[in-house]
């Protein structure tokens, strides 16, 4: 079956002409504007809900009680809903990818931050600061330098502690650090149950549990303030004239390619692979994305929804306002209606599979339990999501090809900077 490239080249040429003709009906610029508007709205909602979390944290610190701790946890859970939908903007938008580690890095060696159970162990080959416990230690040595952490500030967290010693698992900032400070370690293994930190960890004076409650409160406040300021920064990048928006819209084809790259990379390598399948194959309850709060089912669900949002060009804001406009779906439909229908269906099937995981988890079958060795029903549930994500990636690849964007991913290489170089 030796194949001359005549036929394929002719197809490419025809497709190229076809998409050039039809593409005028659906403006790529308008699609990119709508995408950037959705990004701005999703990050705006992430910021608003993070501010609500900040207020709840201040109340918890001022008046520690079971109720104020619960309110802070609920605020954290709410804040995750819009944020997870933004993850699709990471891959393909370099400015987001460079920034997101500050707010959503995971997994973390939580012993860096606060006390942990003895079963956690101490420093490891990979990370000698895995059990540093900054909250208990106002001064310590880090990579040969004496660190003064008597005052825990956002700057200390972002500039000194975060990724300390160049190790990614030293996550000192962002949602998951805050999650750990609110919930504590999940010591239930494969059983249902999340971290059960008591509000007394924040009581000042003799009733303090876990030690150093003043420093724990200071850490929680600094980490939450830092989250808010990091989100404020990213929101401005997506506003009119912001760098994320201008670099996206500078080249319409590269912009459309970035949208698809974000969808495909999150679907396949990140969510289906790293976050879902790997945890299942390792049977490890620590390998769930929101492990302290047992909120992983929502994390997966809203990641999936974010991907679907981008394709359909729609977003339902946390106050119910709908943003919608020219979409990738419109562009694909103008080129290949069957392919558009296929991708819509695949995205919907994935959302159904992710909804089944969420429904089971909310009804009491915790994500930890699904990961346990030999738990066939759990494996089926998780693999349903994984298979949906893999299937949609295949169709996203077909879309990349149908829109003639195959070569865009090599942008910056000789072929695009200097087309003649290829034939030298």
């Amino acid at each position, binding site marked *: 079956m030796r*194949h001359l490239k005549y036929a394929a080249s002719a197809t490419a040429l025809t497709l190229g002409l076809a998409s*050039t003709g039809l593409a005028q009906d659906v403006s790529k610029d308008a699609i990119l504007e709508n995408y950037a508007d959705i990004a701005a709205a999703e990050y705006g909602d992430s910021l608003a809900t993070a501010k609500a979390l900040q207020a709840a944290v201040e109340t918890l610190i001022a008046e520690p009680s079971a109720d104020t701790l619960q309110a802070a946890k609920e605020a954290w859970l709410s804040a995750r809903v819009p944020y997870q939908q933004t993850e699709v903007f990471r891959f393909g938008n370099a400015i987001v990818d460079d920034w997101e580690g500050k707010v959503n890095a995971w997994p973390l060696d939580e012993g860096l931050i606060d006390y942990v159970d003895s079963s956690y162990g101490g420093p490891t080959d990979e990370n000698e600061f895995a059990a540093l416990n900054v909250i208990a230690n106002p001064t310590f040595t880090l990579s040969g330098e004496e660190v003064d952490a008597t005052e825990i500030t956002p700057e200390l967290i972002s500039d000194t502690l975060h990724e300390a010693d160049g190790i990614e698992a030293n996550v000192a900032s962002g949602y998951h650090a805050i999650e750990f400070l609110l919930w504590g370690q999940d010591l239930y293994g494969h059983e249902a149950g999340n971290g059960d930190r008591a509000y007394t960890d924040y009581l000042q004076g003799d009733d303090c549990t876990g030690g150093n409650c003043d420093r724990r409160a200071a850490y929680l406040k600094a980490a939450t303030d830092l989250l808010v300021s990091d989100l404020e920064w990213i929101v401005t990048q997506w506003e009119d004239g912001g760098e994320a928006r201008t670099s996206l819209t500078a080249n319409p084809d590269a912009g459309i390619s970035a949208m698809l790259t974000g969808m495909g990379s999150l679907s396949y390598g990140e969510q289906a692979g790293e976050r879902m399948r*790997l945890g299942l*194959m390792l049977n490890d309850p620590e390998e769930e994305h929101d492990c302290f709060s047992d909120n992983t089912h929502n994390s997966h669900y809203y990641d999936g929804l974010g991907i679907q949002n981008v394709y359909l060009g729609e977003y339902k804001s946390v106050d119910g306002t709908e943003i919608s406009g020219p979409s990738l779906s419109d562009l694909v439909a103008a080129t290949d209606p069957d392919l558009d229908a296929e991708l819509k269906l695949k995205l919907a099937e994935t959302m159904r599979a992710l909804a089944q995981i969420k429904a089971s988890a909310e009804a009491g079958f915790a994500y930890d339990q699904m990961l346990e060795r030999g738990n066939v029903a759990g494996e089926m549930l998780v693999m349903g999501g994984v298979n949906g994500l893999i299937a949609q990636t295949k169709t996203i690849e077909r879309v*990349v090809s149908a829109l003639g964007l195959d070569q865009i991913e090599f942008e910056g290489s*000789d072929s695009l900077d200097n*087309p003649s170089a290829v034939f030298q």
Partner: protein
Amino acid sequence: MRLIAACFALVFTAVPTFAYDIDRIIDEHVLPGFGRLAANAEVLDQRAQEDCSATSPGLREAYNDAFDSWVRISHLRFGPTETGDRAFALAFWPDTKGFTPRELTTLIEARDPAADSEEDFSHVSIAGRGFYALEFLLYDPQFMDAEPEEYRCKLLQAVARDISATAQAILDDWQNGYADLLRNAGENDIYRSEEEAVRAFFGSVVSGLQFTSDTRLGRPLGSFERPRPNRAEARRSNRSARNVLLSLEGTRDLVRLLADGAPNVEAELDTAYDRALDRLAGLEDPTFAGVGDVQGRFEVEILQQNIDRIRELLGASLAPILGVGAGFNALDGD
């Protein structure tokens, strides 16, 4: 941008000298590669059942042969390797959180009966299975003489048997259906066109070399301030540089088949591969232990640049004549 794309299309149409042959790729690269893996894995299993001592020369030889044959085709991460957890169960690495020694310790401490049954063992965490787990059992002092001896032996045999079963299952799937899907691309829904079939192979080369550059070399390199020689792949069995060699040879084999009929592109890529292979041969540092000193680090960095040059050429020279992109791969996340 559109103008450039149109130029490409016109040029291809005018110069239709290039051809690739899916049948040859399957018959000369894929099937022999997975056949060798299955055969060597079977020998590994037999040797382990005969003599389970960690220092047995025959066992270690069989281990290295089987691992060699895996690395040579480990870029082919689609289809049969991705069914169930097969490829992960053969090769769980990098292990950034030390899952493998922890899982082995847990199995040994519990005398986990999963080691008694091939079926039960196939449900064990991927961290306790495959070539990297077996490396700990064969070469790490903590596990070479682990007690009780009877269970250590049984566990080692279970890992070897599981590797063999997985390798055989991959081969079976390629032989009994999957190869035909690629041969008959355009007539089935998995591969709807020739382009989709060739994209699967091209993407596998791209991701295979990315893994070698970013992970096999990048992990021990760490940063200039903080090199990480202990993160070198399979350093306990002295295989770090060897796996880079096998990855280069294996992907080169496929690249030549993909570029067949385009002598200029083939020659350009061959030169780039030669440069990387020469650099590797001159390194004389089987575990990249030298990344800790300036000269040693420099040499590994140059090797990494040589490999990245191949990757650039794949995008700049090979992709346009194949008319495909690389698609998405498992390394797209973070």
